């Protein structure tokens, strides 16, 4: 990592040094803080200032794994966590592939994760920015109310050490603002949101966040429920980002090893339209989830997953790689100190096309611009591939945007949607999500309404 945190690293080291013969130990320690400001009707609604810390210890012995964590870095608690993890080993099943990552010689690509200006940013100004965002939002459109205007920032320091020679530590901070809007529509109200992300608050584009939040809420005023039919859809960049994110699960090497990937046995086959190329690249600093190391402490790297529609690679942690007789792709994920590593894509990027969203819309005779989707967690099954989500958007007729529609679903299967990609936009948007956004056109999707 770009900046080491010697104090946390030595804390992690001190755990690892206690390994008994035959034990492999991984210690993950972290601490961090956050500020959260919320403004409503010009007043400060809440101000949260909080710090947290914790340790997670994983021990593997004779193929059995034990894990324990605690939300504190007190020495007595760390000793207790180590003892608990050790005690938990006996209940695991022997797994010949169980193990820790080992240094693989792949070099880290330095990136900037810490912003000194953000670290020293005065509290009063954070509140001011939040109030300003609310004001700009209300000024953007007289039909709009603000439900909440938020400023959030956070910093974190982490260190991981293992008996296999991994020693990594670093720190990072980040901040964003967001605003949620309402536009009254008879008894009901339509909702919108806008946000802005930056290394420090001076990079925020408050006007753009306010404009988008107002537009999103007002665009749907008077929306009706459409009739059911098969249509071409164009996903707004924000929706595309969500759509691409769910592919992570199907490209996950552990899911592949355990027979849970719909891409099983499809390597080097055409799984998507040739226009579709998907890369996982956490080394690209533009990506919100960019990182220099993965959840096991290996260097993060660029992996081409789908190239011109052909499935090229699954992503792996050291565990899934051992199972599949391959090498880690640097794709271990970690949700914090309270769990061990998993597998997943880290920063997904779709290769853009060469048209603007307006040009893509102009080429659609009968379709819908999908502005928002809901129920991704309840209606999309990444094992069977069944895809069905709630949606709202705007009708496209003969290449022109028409009336807003809502309370309908769009459905297909993931397999079919990838093959039915008609075109991609050049409107790359580095959203604060795991996947990049751009406009994506997909044909032959069932729209279900009245």
């Amino acid at each position, binding site marked *: 990592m770009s900046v080491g945190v010697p104090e946390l690293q030595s804390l992690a080291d001190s755990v690892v040094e206690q390994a008994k013969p035959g034990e492999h130990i991984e210690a993950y320690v972290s601490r961090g803080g956050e500020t959260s400001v919320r403004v409503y009707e010009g007043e400060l609604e*809440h101000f949260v200032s909080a710090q947290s810390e914790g340790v997670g210890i994983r021990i593997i012995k004779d193929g059995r794994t034990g894990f324990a964590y*605690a*939300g504190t870095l007190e020495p007595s608690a760390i000793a207790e966590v180590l003892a608990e993890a050790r005690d938990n080993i006996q209940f695991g099943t022997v797994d010949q592939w169980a193990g820790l990552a080992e240094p693989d010689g792949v070099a880290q690509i330095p990136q900037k994760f810490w912003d000194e200006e953000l670290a020293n940013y005065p509290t009063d100004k954070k509140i001011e920015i939040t109030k300003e965002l609310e004001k700009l939002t209300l000024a953007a459109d007289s039909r709009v109310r603000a439900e909440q205007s938020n400023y959030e920032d956070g910093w974190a320091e982490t260190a991981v050490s293992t008996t296999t020679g991994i020693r990594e530590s670093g720190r990072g901070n980040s901040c964003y603002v967001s605003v949620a809007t309402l536009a009254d529509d008879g008894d009901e*109200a339509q909702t919108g949101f806008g946000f802005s992300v930056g290394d420090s608050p001076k990079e925020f584009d408050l006007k753009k966040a306010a404009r988008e939040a107002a537009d999103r809420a007002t665009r749907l005023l008077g929306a009706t429920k459409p009739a059911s039919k098969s249509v071409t859809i164009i996903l707004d960049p924000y929706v595309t980002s969500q759509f691409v994110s769910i592919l992570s699960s199907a490209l996950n090497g552990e899911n592949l090893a355990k*027979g849970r990937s719909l891409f099983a046995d499809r390597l080097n086959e055409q799984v998507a339209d040739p226009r579709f190329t998907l890369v996982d690249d956490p080394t690209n600093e533009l990506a919100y989830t960019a990182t220099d190391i993965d959840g096991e402490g290996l260097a993060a790297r660029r992996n081409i997953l789908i190239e011109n529609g052909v499935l090229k690679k699954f992503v792996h942690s050291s565990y899934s790689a051992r199972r599949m007789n391959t090498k880690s792709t640097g794709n271990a994920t970690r949700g914090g100190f309270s769990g061990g590593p998993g597998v997943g894509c880290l920063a997904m990027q779709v290769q853009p096309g060469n048209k603007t969203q307006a040009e893509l819309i102009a080429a659609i005779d009968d379709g819908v611009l999908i502005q928002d989707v809901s129920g991704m967690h309840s209606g999309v099954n990444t*094992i*069977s591939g069944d895809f069905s*989500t709630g949606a709202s958007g705007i009708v496209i007729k003969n290449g022109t945007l028409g009336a807003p529609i809502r309370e309908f679903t769009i459905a297909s299967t993931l397999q079919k949607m990838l093959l039915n990609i008609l075109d991609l936009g050049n409107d790359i948007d580095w959203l604060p999500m795991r996947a990049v956004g751009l406009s994506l056109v997909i044909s032959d999707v069932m729209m*279900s309404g009245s």
Partner: protein
Amino acid sequence: MTKTQTVEPLVAPDVLERVLAKGRSTGADFSEIYIEDKRSTSAGLDDGKVEQVTSGRDRGAGIRVVSGETTGFAHTSDLSERGLLAAAQAAALAAKQGDGGVHKVQLGDVLRHSVNTVKLSPDVVEKSRKVELLKRVDAAARAVNASIVQVSAGYGDSRKRILIANSNGVFSADEQVRTLLRVSVVATGDGGMQTGYDSLGHTIGFEMFDENDVEELAIRAAKQAVTKLSARPAPSGAMPVVIKRGSGGVLFHEACGHGLEADLVGKSASVYRGKMGELVASPLVTLVDDGTMTAEWGAIGIDDEGHPSQRNTLIKDGVLTDYMWDYLRARKEGRAQSGNGRRQSYQHLPMVRMTNTFVLNGKEDPDDIVRDTKQGVYIAKLGGGQVDTASGDFVFGMAEAYLIENGEITEPLRESNLIGNGPEVLKDIDLLGNDFAMGNPGTCGKDGQGVPVGDGQPTLRVRSLTIGGTAA
């Protein structure tokens, strides 16, 4: 000497009094401390192997200071007096309103309000017995059918002691135990893979497994996956939907539960704002939120603001009778709290949340409801859902569903979402069964916080819901 470990406050009352006074030192009108000490165990089995047993410890305090409309909040994992005073100072500064002053806070005896009885606390049960359950689940699921290719099972328990004190003199404690078992199954056939899922969770201890058959749970999940192997694509368009008892509480959670939370109503972000006393649902519907419902997943002795849990009728015979309230929203309206102030952990601010939300029994025989439906969809198991409270539009997934043809349940359907508008769907409930049952344990997410909730309903019919399938 008897063992007093569970009765001792997590922090001495005189320390709490000083911390609360510190919280008001910048002129705030309210200060509160929430202390939590949680121990948890989880175990996961996947691909035939017990992958990992995890032990967890989460302990800390959240301090909230309110000054007019402004809330300051800070949390710490340091429960020493020094650590707590520092957090109180941070929260007080965040809510600073002009001059300070000296405020004395006096606490009386701790209020204990229990709704659950734990016979076998999970922390005295050997971990090997917990792991054994997973192996039984795995074996039972795999035995159902040769098409079962993968089983994943998870066990989890937690024992959380909480203590809440505030400057109004509230001083309450509770011990909240939860035990959970879940299973996911993958079956494979000619048409690809299908999945099945089931779970069991209660606010009781390990005795849950004396009263429930884990093999049955595994078999249900496995059969769900196998059944779907021969499923046809779900239809599209609006049609009558019959929802089996105990599987559709999430419909009410999304269609109106969230919209009846006073914080959303207060900001006019709910389609149910200003509707008190009005007919908002079919007269068949009486909706209750009940935190006292023994052993159910959302049952709590006290809420996370120290208020005893209670049973609240929200909709009576179709008429909106009340919203759900936390301290701040109730204070603003000058009314009583309803025991719905909840938070995910000491690191979070409380807000209005549901507990166990359910619809009371109607009069119909559930079989008659199906027989009375000529053409439609029968949902035997719902998935999760999501709602936009302002427009009232909501979705929920159907994890196991069948066609109804000429009053009979026929072919299984592939998964899809359903979409509806809350107020319209509530009015469209035209048949309500007499077979009430609670559903699976759930986690409700709101504003980035997850809390455990329960739901339930008798078999019922909605005259028209939009099914989000692919078949024309």
